[in-house]
């Protein structure tokens, strides 16, 4: 199927709304993507005609809901190239998926003196859970450093990933700079020392064709809401042999096999790691989101974003005076641009753009160690998805011109 941008835009109702009396220019998909009508309709249909709890009822509606929920699990496993559906665990979000690994696998396998390797570009979701675990277990956190262009400095990889390392956890793509990390040498080194690899795919899965088996991830965590799906649905993939050894982390309904007054036995995968009534409508809606992405094609989406990224980087360079972060090697970069307007705080830029109907993200983007590394308070971040256009980039530039005018009054002095 060809990439029909106008048709795609018509599929997203919010894109034809107005913001502060101006057409909405949405450049914050790295925070949460917009939703196509098919996802919205699927959720509506579930509540209007199919609503029931799953895995319990013996009546028609419950059977139907269960079937749709489990079908979404199958779609998810296919989408990421997993071997089977039972290695897909539904959580609330990427953060919960990573905490699940830390609390279940981590507490069992990380001991005093063990090392966990992260990078200096991690989202707080892939940092704080490991800080908590390391504190509890007296384990050690180590960081792969960054080059100035925000790519990873892998020159000392063998000294960082040593025999004491039990886990290497890093993002597939940075939410701040869009850097797509070179995972191959890191995974190869992790295998040499017998460490497991967790990939935070929150930004990766929505933009890049991904196959968890081919790429040999041990754990892969991501969220539905950044890939056209609803909020409140996350995924944890792990290799089956690893998942089989992971003890439950939350107790309650659905994760049990048999319960006595004093003890319980636990269900098989995936139920063992999914306690309580899940986000049924959300998971079913997520199934529709995957279908939508597949109907466009992940490689097509990647190509479109690369085109936008190149166009935007060129125009921002031409604008002059902006500080841009991230690599210029587009093979190592997704559709995210972080920049600063010297002398103007990112929040002020955000407010002025908002008035023009332009939504960007400003601040530290939950990556404070990176801000410390750069010695900045935060950045302005414009992020693209399949529905963005070159006109969106042009609007951003018009907005930035307005920022320049307003702050120019004092900056000139």
């Amino acid at each position, binding site marked *: 199927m060809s990439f029909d941008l106008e048709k795609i835009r018509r599929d997203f109702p919010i894109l034809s709304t107005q913001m*502060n009396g101006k057409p909405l220019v949405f450049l914050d998909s790295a925070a949460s993507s917009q939703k196509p009508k098919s996802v919205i309709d699927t959720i509506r249909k579930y509540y209007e005609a199919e609503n029931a709890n799953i895995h319990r009822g013996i009546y028609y509606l419950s059977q139907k809901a269960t079937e749709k929920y489990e079908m979404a699990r199958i779609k998810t496993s296919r989408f990421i190239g997993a071997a089977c559906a039972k290695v897909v665990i539904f959580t609330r979000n990427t953060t919960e998926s990573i905490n699940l690994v830390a609390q279940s696998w981590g507490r069992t396998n990380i001991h005093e003196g063990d090392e966990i390797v992260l990078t200096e570009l991690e989202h707080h979701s892939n940092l704080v859970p490991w800080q908590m675990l390391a504190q509890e277990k007296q384990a050690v956190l180590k960081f792969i450093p960054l080059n100035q262009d925000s790519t990873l400095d892998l020159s000392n990889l063998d000294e960082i990933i040593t025999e004491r390392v039990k886990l290497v956890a890093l993002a597939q793509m940075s939410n701040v700079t869009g850097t797509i990390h070179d995972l191959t040498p890191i995974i190869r080194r992790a295998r040499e020392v017998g460490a497991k690899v967790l990939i935070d795919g929150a930004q990766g899965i929505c933009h890049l064709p991904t196959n968890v088996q081919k790429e040999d991830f041990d754990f892969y965590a991501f969220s539905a809401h950044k890939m056209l799906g609803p909020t409140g649905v996350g995924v944890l993939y792990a290799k089956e042999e690893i998942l089989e050894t992971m003890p439950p982390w939350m107790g309650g309904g659905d994760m049990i096999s048999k319960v006595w007054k004093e003890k319980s036995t636990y269900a098989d995968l995936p139920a063992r790691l999914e306690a309580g009534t899940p986000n049924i409508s959300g998971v079913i809606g997520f199934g529709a989101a995957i279908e939508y992405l597949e109907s466009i094609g992940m490689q097509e989406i990647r190509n479109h974003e690369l085109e936008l990224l190149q166009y935007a980087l060129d125009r921002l360079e031409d604008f002059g005076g902006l500080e841009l972060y991230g690599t210029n090697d587009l093979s190592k970069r997704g559709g995210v641009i972080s920049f600063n307007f010297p002398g*103007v*705080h*990112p*929040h*002020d830029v955000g*407010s*002025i753009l*908002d*008035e023009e109907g332009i939504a960007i993200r400003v*601040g*530290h983007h939950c990556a404070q160690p990176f801000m410390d590394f750069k010695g900045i*308070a*935060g950045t302005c971040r414009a992020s693209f998805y399949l529905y963005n256009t070159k006109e969106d980039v042009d609007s951003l530039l018009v907005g930035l011109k*307005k920022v320049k005018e*307003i*702050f120019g*009054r*004092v900056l000139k*002095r």
Partner: protein
Amino acid sequence: MSLSDSLYQEVLLDHYQNPRHHGKMEHFDLHQEGVNPLCGDEVELFLKLKGDIISEISFVGKGCSISQASASMLTDSLYGKTISEAKSLLLEFKGMLLEDKVPNFPEEYEDLESMEAVKKIPARIKCATLAWNTLEKAIGK
């Protein structure tokens, strides 16, 4: 005049660019740090008292123009005033932003009125009130 024009008026940008009473104080009677963790804005207030009168006041901080200009206006307004005057000004300022009250500042505080535009941008109200919340903690001690 557009919203951002009315917000980013000369007076606000001037306080941002040329903050009044800026700097740390060596010997102080009251000191308080304030932070908005989600956006990272920081303000640190220092006050020296002579009886009930604020004889010296200063601030340091980092953050957006609104948070820093608001801190500058605060110090400028309170220099030489009494603690009870500070308290009533605090109520007036927060009332303007948080309770939609029409500000009724005496003429000497007219700079503060320029902050009224912030209430049309809810996301920025916490920037404008940071210094004032910090003051509230400082004098509440």
